């Protein structure tokens, strides 16, 4: 008999040992020193987490009740592992290439990173795993109970509950301590995995020890065992074909789909080649674990009293033969089996819960609150820890809610059917490119629902979750929907029945859904990546290339940051790692820091892509590439904006240069004008000064001389005044500030007035004027004063410059195209062709100025006036003498105030005149 205290002590010592192992391995792994972790042995042993307390205790009970059927649970996985080339190899390759962190992550990532699918898978996994955890707690409680009761077969319930509670607390502590130390990008937990491997050894050794004891010490060797089996026939041990095939299939599915198995097989895998070793080593482990199950069951049934729990034969048999040490070893084995399952399952589910449910919720809330994401790692770690606690608490609640159910096996298999619902979406996803999210969701949802309805809820007991009436007659009396006889298939074992219908509907919905729906672009790409993963660049390596990687990273960093900055960064990192003078190890922490540093220069996505290509065995994911493309697009947009801006600047500079040029021209013109004016003004001023000096200085001038000189002075001043008037007039006209007044008038009257006024010029000459009165009768609406001024000027010019002996002037008006044209033609010699263009310029005089008596502004003023009136004045060559044509619209155009631009006035005149 083993005292309870010793047992507890042994337990605590064992747990402390596990803690130590996990801690030491974690430390070694962080420093990159754990080369032995990469031995395939550790990987294979960690797979043993498939053998839980169910194996240790429940298998013997199962064998005692149903004979050889228990072996199906291990034959299925054997077939899957022996056939690793089909499914497991692809899963592991995909897991490493896509950095998959859980089965929910894989399914979600395959179908376009759909978080909805991740949530469904997580919830389903939660429903299936919680009873399984309860199962483990129950086993531990039962096994403790065997020792505390003093008799092998009884236990006291309150103790069982508190034991289970303490165990649950301890498990939560261990899992949090070693499962959530830090966030590993690969989601690998080397410390935990090693502890699990140690437990695997303890399990195997314990069960083998008990088996050897039973076969050779209690019985008489293998022959005796066989004799015993054949001696006492048990009809219930006959193999049922349906269950034999069905359960093998179910177990095969479970080894792939169980979250904890996915975690150790795919996520924690560090080297693909380990899978080749595991392909035979793990079936061997299962073989050894199963080898002595039947012998123990047979001997137990014979030796132990009636009604003793066959599940506990592994403990009670040694105790019955006073093998306390063996019993304690067996106890530790069972303890290992239970705890390893809970730890790994809690880690796997906590990862799923936090990645697919907690973090998206938290991020959505944070976004709504408007806060930045800050340091996500603390949040994630906290979410993980919380999830672990929630998982284990749920398991405990389930255990206390259903505690004491007789057959442990039932719960396990129900959980298997639950996780089997992942199969179509998973396998379809990795082999069929056309599998879509819609199909996966439909299949999962339907399978989940049927599993709940036909298996999970009824398992709580008759009438607990599903009323009795529904069980026997179906919901609303529909017989075809009875939970355990769906669609009229009666008499089928409930487990197989649920398995069959759930998978049939699941697969059908998955296939039909995928066939009719369209995938999103990301889904298409992910589908190709997953299904064609072996076509992608291979060469997935473990951690082994540290030095080469560090060098490559240094080269890349130098290219991005520059030689000095990169080297000092690396030196600093190496110093931090205690590796002064060498290249730093490419630990996850270092890589993260490097990525962040690079991201400052080239953007986060590009930095990640660069680093991942060198370090990771992963292919750069689609999203990374899309993010890089985004960044590149942004950069290109920015640079094109810069280009546009600099083009604009060049254009503006050109415009400024042109304007500057024009202004320079204008200022030159102004200077020329000013110099000419001062010249024109000076000439009369000189005369005035000279003659006034004579008048002042000369003493006695004869009176007629005085009169002559005074007249000259007077004439000159008049000339000056006229010049200044003309200048002012011209300036006003040119600047467009002239105010014209339109009034009704008649052309004939204008001409009359002009002739009358012009007669004062050179009155001695006798001009013959030829007029055409009928033609002159044209109604006008214009500034008649100004127009008359033009006519006066032309006629006065004719009087001044016409050098014919008998001067004649023809005035010929007409109307053409809505414009009035008046031609003034004399019979003199006209203007030489060379000077035709000069006559309208300011200050141009073709003859000696003194004789003409004008400043040369007359025609310039005429032209300005005509332009203001919307018309024109031009010289007509070849008329026999000087000929001027004045043309103007009948209606003066509306004046635009403040317009300095003559061309603008002309334009408006042209538009409004018709």
């Amino acid at each position, binding site marked *: 008999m083993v005292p309870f205290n010793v047992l507890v002590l042994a337990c605590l010592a064992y747990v402390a040992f596990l803690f130590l192992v996990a801690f030491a391995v974690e430390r070694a792994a962080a420093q990159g020193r754990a080369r032995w972790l990469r031995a395939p042995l550790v990987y294979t042993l960690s797979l043993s987490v498939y053998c839980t307390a169910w194996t240790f205790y429940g298998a013997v009970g199962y064998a005692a009740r149903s004979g050889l059927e228990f072996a199906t649970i291990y034959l299925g996985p054997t*077939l899957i592992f022996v*056939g690793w080339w089909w499914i497991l190899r692809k899963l592991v390759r995909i897991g490493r290439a896509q950095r998959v962190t859980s089965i929910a992550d894989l399914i979600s990532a395959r179908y376009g990173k759909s978080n909805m699918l991740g949530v469904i898978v997580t919830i389903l996994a939660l429903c299936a795993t919680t009873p399984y955890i309860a199962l483990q707690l129950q086993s531990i409680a039962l096994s403790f109970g065997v020792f505390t009761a003093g008799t092998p077969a009884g236990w006291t319930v309150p103790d069982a509950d508190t034991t289970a509670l303490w165990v649950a607390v301890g498990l939560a502590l261990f899992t949090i301590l070693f499962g959530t130390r830090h966030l590993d990008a690969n989601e690998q937990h080397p410390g935990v995995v090693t502890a699990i491997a140690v437990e695997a050894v303890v399990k195997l050794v314990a069960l083998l020890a008990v088996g050897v004891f039973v076969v050779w010490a209690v019985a008489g060797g293998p022959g005796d065992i066989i004799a015993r089996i*054949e001696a006492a026939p048990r009809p219930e041990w006959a*193999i049922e074909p349906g269950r*034999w095939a069905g359960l093998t299939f179910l177990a095969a599915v479970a080894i792939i789909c169980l979250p904890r198995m996915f975690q150790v097989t795919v996520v924690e895998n560090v080297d693909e080649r380990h899978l080749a070793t595991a392909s035979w080593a793990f079936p061997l482990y299962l073989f050894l674990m199963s080898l002595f199950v039947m012998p123990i069951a047979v001997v137990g049934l014979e030796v132990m009293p009636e009604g003793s729990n066959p599940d506990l034969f592994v403990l009670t048999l040694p105790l019955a033969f006073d093998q306390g040490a063996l019993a304690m070893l067996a106890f530790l084995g069972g303890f290992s089996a239970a705890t390893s399952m809970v730890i790994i399952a809690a880690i796997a589910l906590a990862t799923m819960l936090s990645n697919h449910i907690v973090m998206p919720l938290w991020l959505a809330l944070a976004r709504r609150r408007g806060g930045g994401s800050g340091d996500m790692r603390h949040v994630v770690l906290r979410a993980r820890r919380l999830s672990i606690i929630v998982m284990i608490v749920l398991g405990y609640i389930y255990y206390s809610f259903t505690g004491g159910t007789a057959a442990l096996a039932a719960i396990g298999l129900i959980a298997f059917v639950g996780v089997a619902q992942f199969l179509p979406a998973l396998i379809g996803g990795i082999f069929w490119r056309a599998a879509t999210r819609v199909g996966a969701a439909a299949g999962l949802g339907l399978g989940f629902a049927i599993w709940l309805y036909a298996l999970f809820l009824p398992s709580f007991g008759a009438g607990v979750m599903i009323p009795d009436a529904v069980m026997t007659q179906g919901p609303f009396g529909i017989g075809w929907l009875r939970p355990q006889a769906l669609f009229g298939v009666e008499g089928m074992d409930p487990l197989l029945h649920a398995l069959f219908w759930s998978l049939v509907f699941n697969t059908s919905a998955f296939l039909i859904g995928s066939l009719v729906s369209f995938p999103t672009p990301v889904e298409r790409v992910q589908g190709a990546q997953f299904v064609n993963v*072996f076509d992608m660049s291979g060469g997935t390596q473990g951690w082994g290339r540290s030095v080469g990687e560090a060098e490559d990273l240094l080269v890349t960093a130098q290219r991005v940051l520059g030689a000095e900055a990169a080297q000092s960064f690396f030196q600093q990192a190496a110093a931090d790692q205690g590796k002064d003078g060498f290249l730093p190890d490419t630990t996850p922490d270092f890589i993260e820091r490097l990525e962040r540093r690079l991201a400052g220069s080239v953007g986060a996505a590009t930095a990640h892509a660069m680093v991942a290509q060198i370090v990771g065995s992963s292919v750069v994911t689609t999203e990374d590439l899309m993010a890089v493309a985004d960044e590149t697009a942004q950069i290109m947009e920015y640079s094109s904006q810069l280009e546009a801006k600099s083009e604009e600047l060049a254009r503006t500079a050109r415009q400024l240069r042109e304007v500057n040029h024009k202004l320079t021209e204008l200022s030159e013109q102004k200077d020329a004008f000013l110099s000419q004016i001062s010249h024109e003004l000076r000439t009369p001023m000189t005369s005035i000064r000279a003659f006034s000096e004579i008048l002042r200085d000369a003493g006695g001038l004869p009176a007629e001389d005085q009169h002559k000189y005074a007249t000259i002075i007077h004439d000159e001043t008049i000339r000056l005044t006229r010049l200044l008037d003309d200048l002012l007039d011209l300036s006003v006209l040119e600047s467009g500030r002239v105010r014209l007044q339109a009034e009704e008038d008649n052309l004939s009257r204008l001409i009359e007035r002009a002739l009358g006024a012009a007669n004062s010029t050179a009155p001695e000459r006798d001009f013959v004027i030829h007029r055409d009165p009928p033609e002159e009768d044209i109604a006008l609406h214009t500034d008649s004063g100004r127009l008359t001024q033009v006519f006066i000027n032309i006629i006065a010019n004719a009087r001044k410059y016409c050098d014919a002996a008998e001067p004649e002037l023809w005035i010929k008006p007409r109307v053409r195209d809505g414009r009035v044209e008046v031609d003034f033609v004399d019979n003199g010699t006209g203007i030489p062709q060379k000077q035709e263009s000069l006559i309208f310029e300011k200050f141009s005089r073709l003859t000696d100025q003194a004789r003409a008596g004008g400043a040369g502004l007359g025609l310039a003023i005429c032209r300005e006036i005509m332009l203001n009136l919307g018309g024109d004045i031009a010289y007509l060559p070849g008329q026999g003498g000087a000929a001027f044509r004045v043309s103007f619209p009948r209606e003066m155009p509306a004046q635009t105030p403040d317009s300095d631009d003559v061309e603008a006035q002309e334009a408006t005149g042209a538009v409004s005149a018709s």
Partner: protein
Amino acid sequence: MSARRGPSLYLARQSYRRRRLIDAARLLPFLGAVLLLLPLLWTPEDTPESATARQALYVFAVWLGLVVAALLLARRLPRGEDGRTDEAG
């Protein structure tokens, strides 16, 4: 090509052998499944009671055989597989 007697040279023996090993690895689980489902065909023949021992021995023997076959194949299969060994098969 050298004038050697014996098997013709168009067959590259080493890679061919490797590919056939991969095929063997692919077929092994199906063979195992067939063998393990055989007990289903026995039950009508014998009296259910005494069949258990024989069935148990048979099952465990097949199991061990599968383990050994997998071991042999895994040692001979190419290490560090890349896609090319797949496609060529």
